[in-house]
């Protein structure tokens, strides 16, 4: 691919880049100077709109559009909240970015807060990452000492305070309204919408919630302009994307890819994942975090029309759910032929049941049912009607809940049965074999 550009990670390997001094020498905080001294808040919003960047937290909603929805009633404070809850299984890119480049996020928070007219902004970090909380707090102190945070930033009259808030261990707090509840010191129960956070968010005030990676892109957009950003990538998938790669690949880790990179190149070239570990072959991929539909290897490389699939929002979702999936959070999990799809589906189901906040019955009860039925199939006690029961329960959850966790729980189950039904049947027909440690059904249609 011609444009192998690094918007976020260009400087990540410079020794000491986590300190203010080194980051500044590498051109860090230039975007704050430019934004605050030379641009108006509306001009910044305009650049972000032009960039075409879509939210990197999972839903892919255009960031500039979200910003322009922010209500601005007189005399009411506005808030920017950065979503650093990162708890979607398979996703570890924000963790990587924050621990290595804390100042990039802080620089992004300053320019974004300025654009939105926020004087107090929050970074909500999952509580398990307490060491990252401390890294961010240290970076904030450094930025403050240099005059980039606090009162009267760079003599402009603009004040901004950044608060890093630890969560307490709850996947649901990644959902933006649950996150706001949690930030108010309550249980992480998602709110009914509307009202949307842009109108009534944190403390009932207008609020923008954006993912770490989304915000970390804003300094580049300010330095180079939205139009330049929009030239990178493909179609409506502009810019780069951090992909967290795990599973049976040679080179697990976090990669910044230009959107539009062919899936085959990402999967198999040594510059990226290096292919499946030696002696094995790809069976299935979860391309965007545990909640997106699983794809068998053949549909992963090629769309249903036989086109080469690309790493972009549109190409990955080509064909809709019958033959496609979603880019989601970029949590990329590759599974080779030793993976038991039933066991993996049961594992994810247990996760969603464990993490359901319990407010709505389709989700609370449905996730429990799915876990139970999958457990019994995996452990050799399933019946054929269990498969249809799973499909039915998944259907009844989908679209019938307060927040999208219900969908996130239903999709992995529905898609696993759609593409690997024979493997479920094999478990049911061969209870003694299927439950032996390491037993895996090998009959699925697989591309080497």
């Amino acid at each position: 691919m011609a444009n192998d550009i690094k918007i976020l990670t260009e400087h990540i390997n410079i020794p000491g880049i986590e300190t203010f001094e080194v980051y500044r020498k590498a051109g860090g905080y230039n975007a704050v100077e430019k934004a605050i001294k030379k641009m108006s808040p509306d001009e910044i919003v305009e650049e972000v709109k032009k960039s075409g960047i879509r939210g990197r937290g999972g839903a892919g909603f255009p960031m500039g559009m979200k910003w322009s929805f922010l209500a601005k009633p007189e005399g009411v404070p506005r808030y920017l909240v950065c979503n650093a809850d990162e708890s979607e299984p398979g996703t570890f890119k924000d963790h990587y970015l924050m621990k290595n480049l804390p100042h990039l996020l802080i620089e992004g928070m300053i320019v974004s807060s300025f654009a939105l007219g926020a004087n107090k902004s929050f970074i909500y970090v999952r509580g398990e990452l307490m060491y990252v909380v401390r890294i961010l707090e240290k970076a904030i102190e450094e930025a403050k000492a240099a005059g980039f945070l606090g009162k009267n930033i760079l003599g402009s009259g603009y004040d901004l305070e950044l608060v890093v808030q630890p969560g307490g261990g709850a996947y649901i707090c990644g959902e933006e309204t649950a996150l706001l509840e949690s930030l108010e010191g309550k249980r992480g129960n998602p709110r009914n919408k509307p009202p949307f956070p842009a109108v009534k968010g944190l403390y009932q005030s207008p609020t923008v919630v954006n993912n770490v990676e989304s915000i970390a892109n804003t300094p580049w957009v300010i330095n180079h302009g939205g139009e330049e950003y929009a030239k990178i990538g493909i179609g409506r998938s502009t810019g780069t994307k951090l992909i967290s790669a795990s599973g049976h690949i040679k080179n697990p880790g976090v990669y910044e890819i230009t959107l539009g990179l062919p899936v085959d190149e990402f999967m198999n070239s040594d510059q990226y994942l290096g292919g499946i570990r030696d002696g094995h072959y790809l069976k299935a991929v979860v391309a965007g975090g545990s909640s997106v539909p699983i794809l068998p290897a053949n549909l992963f490389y090629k769309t249903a029309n036989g086109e080469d699939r690309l790493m972009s929002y549109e190409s990955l979702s080509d064909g809709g759910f019958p033959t496609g999936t979603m880019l989601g959070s970029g949590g990329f999990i590759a599974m080779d032929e030793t993976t038991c799809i039933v066991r993996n589906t049961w594992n994810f189901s247990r996760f969603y049941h464990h993490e359901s906040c319990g407010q709505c019955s389709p989700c609370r009860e449905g996730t429990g049912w799915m876990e139970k039925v999958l457990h019994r199939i995996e452990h050799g006690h399933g019946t054929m009607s269990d498969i249809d029961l799973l499909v039915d329960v998944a259907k009844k959850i989908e679209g019938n809940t307060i927040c999208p966790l219900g969908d996130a729980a239903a999709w992995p189950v529905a898609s696993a049965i759609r593409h690997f039904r024979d493997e479920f049947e094999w478990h049911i027909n061969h209870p003694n074999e299927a439950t032996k440690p390491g037993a895996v059904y090998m009959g699925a249609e697989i591309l080497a």
Partner: protein
Amino acid sequence: MSVTFTEDKLKKAQEIILRYPEGRQKSALLPILHLAQEQFGWVSSDTMDYVAGLLSITPVEVYEVATFYTMFHLEPVGKHVIEYCRTGPCCAMGGEEVFSHLKTKLGIKANETTSDGLFTLKEVECLAACGWGPCFQIREKYFMHLTNQKVDDIIEELSK
């Protein structure tokens, strides 16, 4: 038994409360529960009452939060709490084998404490370190790319 923060922790708690807008001190609840767990090792009902007092909120408001979030230990735990990830990607990275080795080595199951009070095992969900898995966390430290050998070394080191 009455519970009080050390002078340092109390000062830290007061700093935290001041971060939020007037009248929104309840926002300090999660950070202060973390602070309490740091000092006491776990969160007892006395601790929750104490925290409620610090924030001028009702004890019930603290109970419902402390019981919702999985990071707070509501019962006494061992000296080292090993929180290992049981979610799919870590399993794909070899987690099931490594953690069954860990359990055998310590002679306990998930959510149990060794009889010498040294180790508690806690099963947790994805720790946002999947590609660096299998992984576990002990206090604030992440241990990644775990193998049976590494697990043995870590346990030996902590048993000294």
